[in-house]
């Protein structure tokens, strides 16, 4: 202990240093310590035998052993026996990184009837013997500190049980578009009850309103009918239409959704919620490319309806349409505007519409005014097909957008074509189609505030992480799928909502949920409910509760993720994460710094090791030996070596870099002017 620490009476200079007063726990008295040789990986550098003798003298240590392979079956069996015979109440294993064997040794503890959290792993390989293989003496001293820290920590360790909560095997799916409908089917097939909650009178969302769909050519309405038929055959799915989500309470495993269906108020108890509320189409502003100013400017959705409903001839407002100009990226990719993002599916959608026109009506000319054609993946085939059909593609740039004007009853487009050296083109067309993008639904704020789902800078709902947790939100048990998360086509929307269905099933399948016990806890005596912790917690895990006549913070252990962000902000130091308490962390620091009485017979060992590790090049490729002798005491660049040895420079690079990798040579600085590194032999 530091001499300063005994000075109990002094005042703290800052409230951030307050010592915690409660959470006292019984220190572990009978600790077993196992130090691994790792077949030389550790013991070649760290004097594990000496350490195990020294550690045996530590307070509260009952057994201290050095073992050849701690993870081997036989050692594990010995540990179990030691725990039982010696009535050990905690164990420390000093071996490799905790990422490898934490679970192995936790299981050893469990097999011996010891709580798995009364075990501490000390990393004396990756962070000691290997990292300091150049200095075995120092590595031994460090290992001693690391092990003492581990012992100190385990003294304060607490037996913890996984948090078990009951989970309703029921899911609320908000929004019955294709994503929600499709997820409902699988959630039910996997054994959950599903409440499919739709605001409108009909299910099917935007797909139900669509005609022919890319890439399969199916009809939107048919697709929805087929899916709806399937839903009606599954008794575990209850569909509510004209239903409004009023209120959400509870947390993972046990949410209550208050829903009003027409005049009826329902309370639905669900274990998880999947939000699939979809998107809105961007509405062009009046005057945007002549929208609303000219009758001949319509959106792609309006145009698709027109294609659907016209027979034989494409007629709009009584006029036969013989030429169409599609203007792309309307409401998307606005570098100065609100919608900076690309709406992903509109390029393919527009080209697909153009192909539908060609298929249904003959002699309609198409001009596509685009910025980049983004028919990614197999959708490229649509683009190829449209080019083959003679569609004309004109590239404009955002800074010089096309102009749409009505002149002498004609709709005239003027645009600079970046495909023909910015030549200005002017032509008239019968119809202008604005290829509008996707925007978040106008009512998405309502949903996000009821469910506490954060939105991103694009205003769509935000996942936790695009790769690690793409359908999860920071609210445990609340998932997002489909276009409410961002623009997607149908396949992609379904994929994301089914991915969410998978995740939901993994948590609900058993009816009970086991969560790791590494969570925050509050000291009821000292907590003042200043709300600072609740303000930083991104998981909505902290709520006030009354206790002994005052308000204090309460942690919801089922939503807390144990990040510890709340810890440092508490002015009275009343909140902490188990396993990372002040006692544990500070006693580790003490352990590192205690003086080590280590025998320094090491000099000889050090020499032995350095010579033992010297790479002998006998038997190695001839060119290695040539490079080595050319370098000798010199530093040379690759071109210099290449010339000297008469070896092609790429072959030389390959070998030299391999030698660098295996510690034969090393870089010796960069020749800035020439932009070549110099290399020397590694001593």
């Amino acid at each position, binding site marked *: 202990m530091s001499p300063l620490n005994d000075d109990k009476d002094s005042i703290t200079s800052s409230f951030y240093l307050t010592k915690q007063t409660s959470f006292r726990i019984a220190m572990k008295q009978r600790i077993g310590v196992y130090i691994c040789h790792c077949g*030389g990986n550790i013991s070649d550098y760290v004097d594990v035998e000496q350490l195990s003798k020294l550690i045996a003298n530590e307070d509260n240590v009952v057994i201290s052993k050095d073992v050849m392979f701690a993870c081997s079956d036989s050692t594990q069996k010995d540990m179990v026996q030691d725990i039982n015979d010696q009535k050990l109440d905690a164990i420390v294993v000093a071996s490799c990184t905790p990422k490898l064997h934490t679970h192995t040794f936790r299981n050893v503890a469990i097999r011996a009837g010891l709580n798995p959290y009364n075990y501490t792993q000390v990393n004396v390989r990756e962070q000691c013997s290997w990292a300091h293989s150049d200095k075995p003496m120092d590595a031994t001293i460090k290992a001693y500190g690391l092990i003492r820290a581990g012992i100190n920590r385990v003294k304060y360790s607490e037996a913890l049980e996984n948090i078990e909560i009951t989970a309703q095997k029921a899911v609320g799916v908000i929004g019955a578009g294709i994503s929600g409908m499709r997820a409902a089917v699988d959630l039910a097939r996997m054994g959950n009850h599903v409440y499919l909650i739709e605001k409108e009178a009909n299910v099917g969302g935007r797909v139900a309103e669509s005609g022919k769909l890319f*890439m*399969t050519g199916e009809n939107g309405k048919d697709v929805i009918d087929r899916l709806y038929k399937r839903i009606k055959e599954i008794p575990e799915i209850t569909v509510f239409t004209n239903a409004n989500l009023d209120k959400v309470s509870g947390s993972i495993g046990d949410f209550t959704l208050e829903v009003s269906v027409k005049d009826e108020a329902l309370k639905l108890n669900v274990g998880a919620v999947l939000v699939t509320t979809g998107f809105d189409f961007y509405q062009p502003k009046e005057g945007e490319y002549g929208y609303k100013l000219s009758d001949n400017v319509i959106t792609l959705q309006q145009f698709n309806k027109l294609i659907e409903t016209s027979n034989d001839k494409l007629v709009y407002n009584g006029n036969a349409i013989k030429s169409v100009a599609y203007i792309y990226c309307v409401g998307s990719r606005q570098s100065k505007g609100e919608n*900076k*993002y690309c709406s992903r599916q509109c390029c393919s959608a527009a080209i697909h519409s153009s192909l539908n026109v060609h298929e249904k009506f003959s002699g309609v000319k198409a001009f596509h005014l685009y910025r980049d054609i983004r028919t990614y993946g*197999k959708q490229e085939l649509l683009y190829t097909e449209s080019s083959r059909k003679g569609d004309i593609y004109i590239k404009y740039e955002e800074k010089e957008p096309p102009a749409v004007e009505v002149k002498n009853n004609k709709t005239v487009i003027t645009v600079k074509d970046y495909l023909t050296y910015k030549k200005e083109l002017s032509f008239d067309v019968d119809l202008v189609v604005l290829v509008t993008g996707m925007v978040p639904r106008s009512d998405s704020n309502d949903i996000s505030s009821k469910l506490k789902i954060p939105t991103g800078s694009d205003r769509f709902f935000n996942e936790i992480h695009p790769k690690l947790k793409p359908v999860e939100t920071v609210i445990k048990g609340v998932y997002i799928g489909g276009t409410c998360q961002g623009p997607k086509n149908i396949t992609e929307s379904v994929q994301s909502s089914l*991915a969410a269905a998978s995740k939901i099933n993994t948590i609900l399948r058993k009816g009970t949920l086991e969560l790791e016990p590494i969570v925050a806890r509050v000291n009821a005596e000292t907590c003042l409910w200043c709300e600072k912790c609740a303000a930083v917690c991104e998981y909505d895990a902290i709520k006030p509760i009354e206790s002994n006549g005052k308000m204090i913070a309460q942690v919801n252990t089922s939503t807390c993720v144990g990040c510890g962000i709340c810890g440092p902000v508490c002015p009275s130091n009343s909140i902490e994460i188990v396993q990372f308490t002040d006692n544990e962390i500070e006693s580790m620091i003490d352990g590192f710094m205690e003086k080590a009485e280590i025998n320094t017979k090491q000099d000889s060992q050090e020499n032995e090791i350095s010579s033992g590790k010297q790479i002998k090049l006998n038997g190695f490729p001839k060119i290695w030996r040539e490079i080595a002798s050319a370098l000798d005491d010199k530093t040379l660049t690759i071109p210099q070596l290449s010339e000297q040895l008469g070896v092609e420079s790429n072959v030389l690079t390959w070998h030299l870099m*391999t030698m*660098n990798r295996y510690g034969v040579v090393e870089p010796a600085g960069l020749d800035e002017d020439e932009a*070549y590194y110099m290399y020397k032999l590694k001593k």
Partner: protein
Amino acid sequence: MPENISNKYDAVVIGGGIAGQETALNLADMDYKVLLVEKELSIGGKMIQLSKVFPTLDCAACITTPKMSETARHPNITLMLNTDVIETVKTNGHFDITLNIRPRYVDEALCTGCQQCEWVCPKVVEDSYNSNMVGRKAISIPFSLANPKIAAIDMEQCLHCKKCEKVCVPKAIDYNMQPKRVNVEATSVIVSTGFNLFKPKNKPQYGYGKYPNVIDAMQMDRLIAPTRPYNSLLRPGDGKVPDNIAYILCTGSRDSSIENAMGCSAECSNNPICSQICCMYSIKQAQLLMGALPLADITIYYMDIRAFGKGYEEFYQQAKSMGVNFIKGKVAKVTPKEDNSGNLILRYEDVATGKLKEVKHDLVVLSVGVLPNSGIVKTFTNQKLELDDQRFIKQVDELVSPSLTSIEGVFVAGTAAGPKDIPDSILSAGSAASEAASYIKRFSN
């Protein structure tokens, strides 16, 4: 492989890339027994080779390695590495699968991954993890992030000097290890065999394989990764720090001229579709290069920039504002500069001006596309696993059930069904798991 493992599984997942791992984990978390079959020595797929990943620029390893260890450790997942599927037969609603585990010549149960053997081994071979830009030893751990971290011997290259055997403390090396046949029975099969990269030699006008400073994008991802093969970011031709780098987009994608040029087979045939990832990975690499070599010029030659996903357009605009040079133009030819400098001349048609231009670069990166890897279909013998026109696994109900294939009980995940980036591969894996779980459930009640 663990001998005592039962040979009945709810699902067999073929291919341990990000999609395969994600599918296996989802199913295993639902308490289904999963066998994950991988042909390489480690799971991880293409993603474990990458540097950082768009659009968040987080490091690929930070995302994959925890997934890999979760997969390897999961009590419901059995890993079978270095393994080929020989045959899959559907009988009475389940699948009988014959597998062949190739020998790695190191006992998995004993090897501690200490690499002592690797240091003493005198035989240097190509390191495929680093796209052959550097060597490794005939015995080695496949790569530093491999899981499992166990050595293997490249027997074709081994000199039988027995140096490794002498230094291996746990006596893990066994030169006489034999291949092993295993039969397993499964309720469902998930195909997540990923994709192949276009082989840039099949586009001879770009000079890959002829000029050492023309590399492909996977090589560039390795060069900028923290686990890179060289001491710094250097070009492989002569170890120079590059300062004027060109990207040629759509190499081997959106291209129907390949067959004609080469007159070759499926390996390198026409690829009329877009590979969906190369625009973005090139922009990503350009941003990373700007960070690593602040003075370097970076030019991207493109047809269209396809930055379509969440946050991608913003990522593209950011690259532009950082000073990455974007030129719309098709590159016709790459030739070496005649002065032995290792530099290259690019000839292209500049769309903005309509002129043919020639420019010098000191490193050229080919943004190669995605080709199908669907050899696995041959192993389905009594029912046909169909392919689509581009020879990806056919999605028979693409809009409503994207993971269904032509065989009931066989599902597809990730890039095996078509080009995808990582976020999309992960989602498609989740959806395959959902379909598979719903299917398996039918049999369990």
